């Protein structure tokens, strides 16, 4: 008698469309991990700027040493305050954009997972190891 069961999917056909789906999922997964790192970095920067702003309020010197490039320039307190506000705004906007991209990526990946698991069931593993 011939073996007829789908023993560990060794007879599963893989079409070009399936391959493209797998490729796309791989791309999304890579981009997801990159985004996580970028978000961590942006969050840290936001926190640092927040702390810097708070320190500034407590400081009573007129001249603050503000890092521009590789040197610390003596800048009046008000200018520093403005700069930090600008930097905080820019960083927070970037953080928001990154979070949005991550969310859309997660939902797209969930979609693809559904499609791929439907076709391949046990023969494919799309989970994080």
């Amino acid at each position, binding site marked *: 008698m011939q073996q007829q069961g789908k023993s560990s999917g060794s007879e599963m056909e893989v079409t070009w469309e399936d391959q493209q789906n797998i490729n796309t999922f791989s791309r999304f997964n890579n981009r997801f991990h990159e985004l996580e790192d970028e978000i961590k970095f942006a969050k840290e920067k936001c926190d640092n700027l927040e702390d810097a702003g708070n320190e500034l309020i407590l400081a009573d010197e007129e001249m603050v040493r503000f890092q521009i490039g*590789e040197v610390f*320039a*003596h800048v009046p307190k008000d200018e520093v305050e403005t700069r930090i506000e600008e930097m905080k705004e820019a960083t927070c906007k970037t953080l928001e954009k990154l979070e949005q991209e991550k969310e859309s990526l997660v939902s797209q990946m969930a979609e693809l997972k559904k499609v791929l698991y439907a076709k391949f069931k046990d023969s494919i593993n799309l989970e994080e190891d």
Partner: protein
Amino acid sequence: MSSSSSPSGSGADLSERRGIPAAKFIQDVETYLSQSGFDSNSALAFHQERLQQYKVVEMKLLAQQRDLQAKIPDIEKCLEVVATLEARKGTGESLLADFEVSEGIYSRACIEDTDSVCLWLGANVMLEYSCEEATTLLKNNLENAKASLEVLVADLQFLRDQVTVTQVTIARIYNYDVHQRRVKQVTTPTAIAAADS
């Protein structure tokens, strides 16, 4: 070998990209093996080797990407400094700055109102530029670096796609081989049983 990529592919029909050969997608393992004359083991070996080659290229591209990603913030910092100097130009007041002489040791510099800056171009070469020229040059470098990074990222994505295709191909050939062996195992005892009876 017949081309097996469908015309509806999303730009993935390139046979190679910047020296990286594309991995041909196999529609049917059995046809591929009979057409190419490979048996399972040599096909597996061939694709494994391809995978290794792809990995080597991936390492190289990742290193280049890291370099570029470090370069871009550097250029942005330089632009910031030049912008600050330019902003001070009209006021006539000098800029006091603390800079690092060595680790943990800083010194104070008094930067007079000036029209020109010196830019380090690499290879032990430093040139003096006016503030505007410096800004233009740095902006150009920044644009080029960002464009190179974009191309590099696209290359990496293409490469990773080829790696995925190759890995899936290896899995399919292996599964096909396992399947063939199983079929042979089942039919051979049956033939012996039939011969015995």
